[in-house]
C-alpha cells in the first residue's frame, strides 16, 4: 500500500471515528456501583489452570449473587495498566489482578484510585491501604503431593515438569522434592522446565515429550506445574502407564484412574472471597497468605483417584498436614532465600 | 542463399511429397521497441535435424517459444504436417506432437526419473497406473533410442547429461514427433555432447524431427542436416549443412547488419596504456575460459575483439574491469599491475572506465531514477558531496549535464532508468563512463539493442574519444562495428586469441578465425 493509500485510509477512519463519537459505544456505560472486575493474565481465562481457577471463582460469585462482573484478557504488557485503569475509571470495585506479573501496574493504578478496592493474586509486594494481596503456600500443598508421589512410586523415581523457569515454579518444585525426600530419602526426582518464554505455559507437546523422557528414565509419578503445558504431561503419563499429578484446579478427572491427585491452589476461593468481602463490607487490605491451615492449598480426592490413594497414604498425608498446620513441620519456602535444601 | 522453399528431398524422409513437419509462415513478434522476429518463414522437413543458429538476442529462442506456445506471434501462422494449427499454450504444442527441452531443465530434482516423466501426464487421481504404464513405455523408448536411464534414480543425483536425457524422454513420453532443443550442449561436457548427438541421429533415423538452437558453429556442422541463420530478428539464410562451412555461417551470423558510415581518420597511437600478458582465467569447474591471452592497447587507438559470443570476451572484459581475479598472468595499466586488485572501485579511481555488455543487468539499476543510475560506480566521487553525504543538487546537476552532452531523451533525470529506450540507456552509461576522463575505456557491445539514432551517435563518440588520446578496448559480436571502429582487430575463439588483423581484412578471413580455423588450415572445416 502506498503512502497516499494509507493517508486516505487513516483520514477515513478518523472521520468515521468522530461520527461515531456522538453515537456512543458500550464502553462509556458505567457499571452499577460495586461491580467487580477481573484482569486475566496473558494465559487467558481458559488455561485449564491458574486463570481458569480465577474465572471459576468469579463465575461462582456471579451465580450466587446475580452480580455481573467486568473482565479483560491481557495481550501485551502495556495493556496491564490500561485495563486496570479502564476499570478503575469506570468505577468497578473490587478490581482483581490475576498473577504477579501485574504487580507493578497494579501498584501504580491503585495509588491513583484510593477509593477503589484492588486485589492481586500471587503477589505480596504492594502495601497500599486499598490493596489486598493474596499469596499461597504452594510449598505446603506440593509437599503433600510429593509425599503421596513417593508412596505411590514403585520405582523410587518421580518427576516434575515445570512451565516457564521462574521463581514461582521453583517454589512448587522445592516443596514437592521436600515431600518426596521426607518420605523416601533414597528417591530420585527428575526436574524439567518446559522453556524460557511465555510459550512454555502452553506447549502440551513439549510437556508430553519431557514426561516421556522422565518415564524412560524410570519415573512412574509425574507432577506438573505448567499451566496449559500440563495437559500434555498428564496425557503422556496416562498413555505410558505412569501416574500424573495435576495442579491448581482438580485435574483428577482428565484421565480418571491415571491421575494420582491434584495439588489444589484455591484461587477460585480467593477470588470468591475478595468479591464477597467487598460486597458485605468486610474487605481488608494487606497480605493474606493461604496455606493448608486456611484450606488455600491441598490435595484433591474424588471418585477418580479413590483407588489410587490407599488409606495408609491418606493417613500419612493427613498426619503431615496436621504437623504443618501445627507448626511442628516446616516446609521450606524457596522464595525466602531462593535456595532449595534438597534436590 | 535465402530459402524458404519446403525441404529438399530428404534421404531419410518417408516420402518425397510429404509436407514439412513444421512450417512457420511470416512470424512477427515485437516486445515493446524490440523487434524480436521479423517476418520469419521457415520449413522443417520431417525426419531431419534442423539447426537454428544466431547470436544471443538474434531471435531464435523467441521463434521457438512461439512454436511451443509460450508467446503468441503478432502475425503469421504455424503449420504442423501441412495443417494450420493454433498454438496458444505449451499444452497445445504438446497436443500437436511438439516437445521442448529447455536450456534450464524443468525437472523436479527430488523425484525419480519415472515420476518426472509422467509429470503433467499423470492421468487420474492415482499415480500408480500411470507409473506402471510409463515404466513400460520408458523401457521401449530406452531400447529404441539408446536413451538408457534408471527409471528409479533420483533426478537430482544424476549428472546433467542424464538429466537432459530425462527431459528428452519426458517429451517423447508425451508423444513428441518434433523435438526442440534450446542450447542443449551449454551444460554438457564434450563427451556428453557427443553422446547427445548420437541420440539425436538415432531419433532422426526413427523418423523424429529435431530442431536444435545453438550459437556454436561446430555443433551445427557436426549434427544438422540443414541450418537456418538468424540475425537481429531476421532469418537471413537457410542452407543444407553439407553445402556450407563454419566460416560461411560465422560470416552470416555476424555479417553486415547496418552499414556504418563513420569517418575514421588515421589513428595516432601513443604509449601503451593497457598491457595484458599471458592472462588466464578458470571458472569454478576449473575450465579455462580465458587462455594465455596477451595484447596491448595504446593511447589513441581502438583495439577491437571480434568473435562469436561465448568465446571468452565477456570474461576478458570482467578481468580488466576488476570483476574477476586472474588465475594467471598480469594486467598492467600504465605499467602498474592491476590484475590482483580485483576491485572495480579502485580501478575506476585509477582511470579504467567500463561500459558493460549488459547495461540492463549491470550498467544501470532499473528501478533507480536516472540521476541515481547516472552516478553508479561514481557514487563515492568526492565531488558529489561530503564524506558520507550525497549532495542531491550536485548529483542532479551532473546527470543533467551528461544527458545534455549525450542528447539523452527524455531529458528528465527523475524518470526511472527502466523507462528509457535501449539507445538512451546506453548513452546514459557511456556519458557516465566517458565523462570522468578515463585513461582506458573498455566497451562491450556498444550498440546492442540500441535504436538507429544511437547506432550512429555512439561509434562517433568512441572515435572522438580515441582522437583525444584515450585507449579503448572494444568487444563486439558485430563484425562490421569492429571493422569500422578498430585500429587493430583481435579474434577470440575458445578463450584464446586466434590472431591479430588490420581492420581492412576481409570478412571471410575474420570469419574463419572466429570459427577457430587458422588461415593455414584451409580450405574448409566442415562437418565430418
Amino acid at each position: 500500500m502506498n503512502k497516499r493509500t494509507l493517508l486516505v485510509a487513516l483520514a477515513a477512519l478518523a472521520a468515521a471515528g468522530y461520527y461515531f463519537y456522538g453515537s456512543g459505544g458500550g464502553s462509556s456505560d458505567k457499571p452499577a456501583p460495586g461491580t467487580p472486575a477481573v484482569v486475566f493474565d496473558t494465559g487467558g481465562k481458559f488455561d485449564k489452570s491458574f486463570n481458569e481457577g480465577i474465572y471459576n471463582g468469579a463465575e461462582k460469585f456471579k451465580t450466587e449473587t446475580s452480580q455481573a462482573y467486568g473482565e479483560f484478557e491481557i495481550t501485551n504488557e502495556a495493556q496491564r495498566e490500561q485495563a486496570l485503569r479502564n476499570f478503575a475509571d469506570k468505577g468497578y470495585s473490587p478490581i482483581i489482578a490475576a498473577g504477579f506479573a501485574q504487580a507493578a501496574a497494579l501498584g501504580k493504578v491503585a495509588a491513583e484510585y484510593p477509593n477503589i478496592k484492588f486485589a492481586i493474586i500471587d503477589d505480596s509486594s504492594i502495601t497500599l491501604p486499598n490493596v489486598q494481596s493474596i499469596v499461597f503456600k504452594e510449598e505446603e500443598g506440593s509437599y503433600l503431593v510429593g509425599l503421596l508421589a513417593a508412596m505411590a512410586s514403585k520405582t523410587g523415581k518421580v518427576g516434575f515438569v515445570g512451565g516457564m523457569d521462574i521463581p514461582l515454579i521453583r517454589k512448587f518444585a522445592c516443596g514437592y522434592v521436600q515431600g518426596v525426600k521426607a518420605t523416601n530419602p533414597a528417591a530420585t526426582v527428575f526436574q524439567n522446565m518446559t522453556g524460557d518464554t511465555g510459550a512454555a505455559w502452553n506447549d502440551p507437546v513439549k510437556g508430553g515429550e519431557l514426561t516421556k523422557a522422565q518415564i524412560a528414565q524410570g519415573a512412574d509419578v509425574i507432577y506438573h506445574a505448567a499451566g496449559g503445558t500440563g495437559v500434555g504431561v498428564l496425557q503422556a503419563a496416562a498413555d505410558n502407564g505412569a501416574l500424573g499429578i495435576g495442579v491448581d484446579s482438580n485435574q483428577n478427572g482428565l484421565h480418571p484412574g491415571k491421575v494420582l491427585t491434584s495439588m489444589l491452589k484455591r484461587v477460585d476461593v480467593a477470588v470468591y472471597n475478595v468479591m464477597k468481602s467487598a460486597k458485605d463490607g468486610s474487605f481488608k487490605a494487606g497480605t493474606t497468605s493461604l496455606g493448608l491451615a486456611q484450606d488455600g492449598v491441598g490435595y484433591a480426592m474424588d471418585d477418580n483417584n479413590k483407588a489410587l490413594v490407599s488409606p495408609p497414604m491418606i493417613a500419612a498425608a493427613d498426619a503431615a498436614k496436621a504437623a504443618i498446620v501445627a507448626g511442628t513441620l516446616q516446609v521450606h519456602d524457596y522464595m525466602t532465600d531462593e535456595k532449595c535444601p534438597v534436590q | 542463399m535465402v530459402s524458404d522453399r519446403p525441404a529438399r528431398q530428404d534421404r531419410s524422409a518417408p516420402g518425397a511429397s510429404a509436407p514439412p513437419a513444421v512450417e512457420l509462415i511470416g512470424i512477427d513478434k515485437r516486445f515493446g521497441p524490440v523487434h524480436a522476429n521479423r517476418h520469419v518463414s521457415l520449413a522443417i522437413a520431417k525426419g531431419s535435424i534442423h539447426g537454428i543458429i544466431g547470436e544471443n538476442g538474434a531471435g531464435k529462442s523467441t521463434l521457438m517459444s512461439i512454436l511451443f506456445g509460450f508467446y503468441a506471434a503478432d502475425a503469421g501462422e504455424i503449420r504442423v504436417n501441412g495443417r494450420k494449427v493454433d498454438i496458444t499454450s505449451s499444452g497445445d504444442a504438446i497436443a500437436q506432437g511438439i516437445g521442448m527441452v529447455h536450456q534450464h531443465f524443468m525437472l523436479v530434482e527430488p523425484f525419480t526419473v519415472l515420476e518426472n516423466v509422467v509429470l503433467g501426464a499423470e492421468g487420474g487421481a492415482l499415480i500408480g497406473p500411470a507409473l506402471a504404464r510409463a515404466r513400460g513405455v520408458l523401457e521401449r523408448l530406452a531400447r529404441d533410442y539408446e536413451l538408457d536411464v534408471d527409471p528409479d534414480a533420483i533426478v537430482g543425483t544424476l549428472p546433467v547429461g542424464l538429466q537432459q536425457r530425462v527431459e528428452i524422454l519426458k517429451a517423447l513420453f508425451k508423444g513428441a514427433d518434433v523435438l526442440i532443443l534450446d542450447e542443449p550442449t551449454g551444460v554438457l561436457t564434450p563427451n556428453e555432447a557427443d553422446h547427445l548427438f548420437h541420440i539425436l541421429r538415432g531419433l532422426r533415423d526413427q523418423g523424429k524431427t529435431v530442431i536444435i538452437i545453438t550459437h556454436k558453429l561446430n555443433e551445427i556442422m557436426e549434427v544438422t542436416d540443414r541450418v537456418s541463420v538468424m540475425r537481429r530478428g531476421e532469418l537471413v539464410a537457410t542452407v543444407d549443412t553439407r553445402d556450407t562451412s563454419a566460416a560461411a555461417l560465422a560470416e552470416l551470423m555476424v555479417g553486415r547488419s547496418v552499414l556504418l558510415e563513420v569517418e575514421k581518420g588515421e589513428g595516432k597511437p601513443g604509449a601503451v596504456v593497457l598491457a595484458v600478458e599471458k592472462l588466464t582465467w578458470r571458472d569454478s569447474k576449473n575450465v579455462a575460459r580465458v587462455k594465455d591471452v596477451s595484447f596491448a592497447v595504446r593511447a589513441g587507438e581502438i583495439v577491437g575483439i571480434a568473435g562469436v559470443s561465448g568465446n571468452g570476451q565477456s570474461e576478458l572484459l570482467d578481468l580488466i574491469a576488476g570483476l574477476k581475479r586472474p588465475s594467471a598472468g598480469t594486467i598492467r595499466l600504465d605499467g602498474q599491475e592491476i590484475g590482483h586488485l580485483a576491485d572495480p572501485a579502485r580501478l575506476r579511481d585509477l582511470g579504467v572506465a567500463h561500459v558493460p555488455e549488459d547495461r540492463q543487468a549491470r550498467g544501470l539499476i532499473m528501478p533507480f531514477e536516472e540521476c541515481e543510475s547516472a552516478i553508479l560506480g561514481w557514487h563515492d566521487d568526492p565531488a558529489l558531496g561530503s564524506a558520507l553525504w550525497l549532495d542531491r543538487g550536485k548529483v542532479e546537476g551532473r546527470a543533467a549535464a551528461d544527458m545534455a552532452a549525450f542528447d539523452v531523451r527524455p531529458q528528465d533525470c527523475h524518470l526511472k532508468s527502466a523507462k528509457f529506450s535501449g539507445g538512451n540507456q546506453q548513452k546514459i552509461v557511456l556519458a557516465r563512463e566517458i565523462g570522468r576522463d578515463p585513461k582506458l575505456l573498455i566497451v562491450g557491445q556498444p550498440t546492442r539493442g540500441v535504436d538507429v539514432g544511437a547506432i550512429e551517435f555512439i561509434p562517433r563518440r568512441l572515435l572522438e574519444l580515441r582522437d583525444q588520446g584515450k585507449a579503448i578496448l572494444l568487444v563486439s559480436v558485430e563484425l562490421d562495428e569492429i571493422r569500422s571502429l578498430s585500429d587493430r582487430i583481435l579474434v577470440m575463439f575458445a578463450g584464446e586469441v586466434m590472431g591479430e588483423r588490420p581492420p581492412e581484412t576481409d570478412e571471410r578471413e575474420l570469419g574463419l578465425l572466429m570459427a577457430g580455423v587458422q588461415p593455414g588450415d584451409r580450405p574448409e572445416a566442415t562437418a565430418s
Partner: protein
Amino acid sequence: MMKKVHGELPHWVDTALIPAVNLVVALLVAGLVVLIIGENPLEALGILLKGALGSVRGWSYMLYYATNFTFTGLAVAVAFHAGLFNIGGEGQAYVAGLGAALAGLGLEFLPWPIALLIGIMAAMAFGALWGFIPGYLQARRGSHIVITTIMFNFIAASLMVYLINNWFRPAGRMAVESREITHISLVNLLPPSPLNAAVFLAGLAAWFTWYLLWRTRLGYEIRAVGANPEAAVYAGIKPQRVIMITMAISGALAGLMAVNEVLGVHHRLILEFAGGAGFVGIAVALMGRSHPVGVVLAALLFGLLYQGGAELSFAKPAITRDMIVVIQGLVILFMGALEQAFRPVLAAFFFAPEKA
C-alpha cells in the same frame, strides 16, 4: 473522458477510491465476523474507532503503539532496501532492552542526561549487535538471513529470561523483572498513558532512515545492493560489507523500541516486553512499501487497530482478544495484501463507457 491506455485509471481513483473501497470491504468482512458472534458490527466499529480516536487517552495509546511499530517497521524497511528480510526485529529489540537497562541501572553516578543518552545508544548498540551477527553469517558464511534472524529471536528469548531471572531480578521478588530504573527515563507526555518522548525519537528515526537511504553514499549502496546486486558489484560496491552494515542499522532501529518500553513505559526490564512488535514491524514495512513515510502511516494504522481493538474487547467481552486479532488481520489483508484486488473491477467500470 480522455482516451487512456487500459490499466491507467484517473489519478483520484488510485489515490482515493481504491483505498476507500478496500477499507469499506475490510470493514464489511470484519463486520460480518462480528455479526456471526452475535454483536452489532456498527456498534463494534464505533467502539473501535472511538477507543482509539475518541479521547486524548485513546490517541496517546495509539501513538504509543505506533511508536513501537515505527521503530520495528523502519528496521524491517531498511533491511528490505538491501534485499534482506529481517525477521529478527523482535529479538533485536529484546536484547536492546538489556543495553537500556544496564545503562539505567549501572550509570546512576552519571548526570541523568548523559546516562539517558548512553542508555539510548546502548540500546541501539545491543540491537545493532543482534542484527549484525546474522548479517555477518549471511555475508561471510552464506547462512540465510531469514533462518538466522528467526533463530536469533529464540536465542534472545532464552538469553533474556536467564539474565533477568538470575541477574536482574531482586532476590525474593516473584515477578521476573529487574528493579525499577529510577535514574533515567523519557518524559511521559500524557500521564497516565504510556506515551513518552520516544514518540519524537520515532519521528527522528523515520527522518534519519529517509535521509540515510536517499541522501547518503551508504544509502545509495544499500539500495543498489537490494535492487541489483550484479550492478552493485559492477559499480565497485562490496555487497558483503553493505549487508553487514545494513543489518546493524536495522538492529539499531529495532533496538530503539526498547528505549520506548524500558526507559519510557515500564522503567524496568521485564520479560518479553517486545510483545510481538518486532513481527508487526514486518507487516508495517510491507504495508508502508518500505518508505519511512509509509512506515509511519502504517504504524499509525496498526496503532489504531491495537488500541481500538483493546477497547473493543474491553467493552464487549463476547468479542474476545482472538476476535480482535481476526479483525486486525482482515484489515491488513484488504488494505495491504489485496490492495489491487478491486482494481480490475473499477477499471472495467471506468472503461466500459468507452467501449460502448
